[in-house]
């Protein structure tokens, strides 16, 4: 677990892309939903190199800004192609106004041509 940012760094309905040594070359996106929940997934869409933090947040789903596949931020499931593989989810703990992340130990579903450390 690591401290990613202060709670106030992400307004409700917004997202923050986090790329640090803690994420091992795979940037993550931390979302603050309109309902006040904090959720985190890998930032890179599983279809192509696009940042989900730049996408549309609706409820606890985010729509990829490139090709509009939607990911459930709680389960990582994708609704419809062009993306076909789920996004990895990470555990979020908010404590004392700080957002903590526990990285998933699963292998990330990065898109073709993208490997850890080469995300655009």
């Amino acid at each position, binding site marked *: 677990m690591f401290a990613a940012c202060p709670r106030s760094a992400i307004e409700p309905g917004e997202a923050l892309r986090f790329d640090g040594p803690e994420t091992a070359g795979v940037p993550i996106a931390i979302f603050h939903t309109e309902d006040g929940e904090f959720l985190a997934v890998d930032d890179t869409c599983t279809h192509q190199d*696009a940042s989900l933090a730049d*996408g549309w947040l609706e409820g606890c789903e985010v729509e990829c800004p490139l090709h*509009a596949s939607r990911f459930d931020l709680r389960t990582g499931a994708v609704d419809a192609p062009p993306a076909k593989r789920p996004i990895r989810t990470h555990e979020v703990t908010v404590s004392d106004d700080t957002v903590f992340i526990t990285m998933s130990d699963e292998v990330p579903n990065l898109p*073709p041509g993208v490997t850890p450390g080469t995300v655009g």
Partner: protein
Amino acid sequence: MSTTPQHVVVVGASLAGLSTVRALRSQGFAGQVTVIGDELHRPYDRPPLSKEFLASITDQLELSLEADGEDLDVTWRLGERARNLRQRPGGGASIQLRDGQSVVGDRVVIATGAAARCGIAGLGLPGVHLLRTLDDAVSLRRDLHDAAVSGRPVVVVGGGFIGSEVAATARQLGCRVTLVVPDDVALRSALGHYADAVADLHASHDVTVRPHARVREVRAGAAGLEVIIQNGHRIPAATVVLGIGAVPAVGWLADSGLDLGDGAGAIRCDEHGATGLEGVYAVGDCAAWHSPGLGYHHQIEHWTSAKERGAVVAARLLEAERVPTCRPPYVWSDLYGKKLQLAGYRDLADHPPGPEHTLEAGSIGTGSFTAVFRRAGEPVAVLSLDQPRQFAAIRRRLVSAPVTTPAEGAPA
């Protein structure tokens, strides 16, 4: 319409067709659905055909638009081409197929898309390609890989997105590439002033651009193909790609009673995809939906619109109380590893003495920029190259639908 739909027939196993079916099911339609497609393939994604698929980065399986295990309970009639449409009393239509059979639906959704324009003599010659379908792409891919090995020249004809994408992909495969464009640079009509950045990309990747050139014909010469341009110049080629635009695939509807407008010939619909025939709808590249904000019928040939509008047609067909709204049109391209993105209604931007547009970030010269088009100070369109983050931030602020009348000087 008064009766509950029993059988929806979708003509076109396309993104627009599949999106409509998916939305019908998710909106609760439990009746029969038949999809007629003239290709043998189930619905697949076309944008990669000029990019990742052509470069062999993405394979055919990955192009499928259906999710693994997705079952929409559809009767697929693939490899069957619709020949005409006859209105059915009480709504819907009978679709006659090339082999003489008919499929009758009490609701019909036309999603036949567009076909590659092919008005240049020499199209049938070996080595001359169009690029619209998966089969086109497989055949072109083979020739490009051969040309990369042999070093024989590839000539791409077209000043639009397909031309530039194919030129970039062929170049990245190692081909010698000449790009023939009608204006001074590629993509001038699509991007205006900002096309200079794409011109720089082609130049720095050693693509030879032949400006102000219109192709008269392609001929078989003694040493291979020759692309003849209007001033009589000949460009030698082993492989030729004609990317000279697309036309709505509506030829089969000539005597259907549908309003095909004038010129472009897309099916005219209301703002939710309903045509003038009861129980008949149209969506995707073959349709021009009326835009209340723009005040005219507006054909959008964009992937994103084809996807989003399926849900609108489905809601209209099912007479849902709430019809989803679509975002402003969005189109993207990938050139030499850089993303080119365009969203919104540039036609709405203030015109005389020229659209009001400003560079928000970067510069054309560096090949990385974001430009915003405004009307009365409000952003109505955004264009960027290699700046997806800046683009996304501005795109989200664009008005979700135009509510104003077109600016003076905008096309009617």
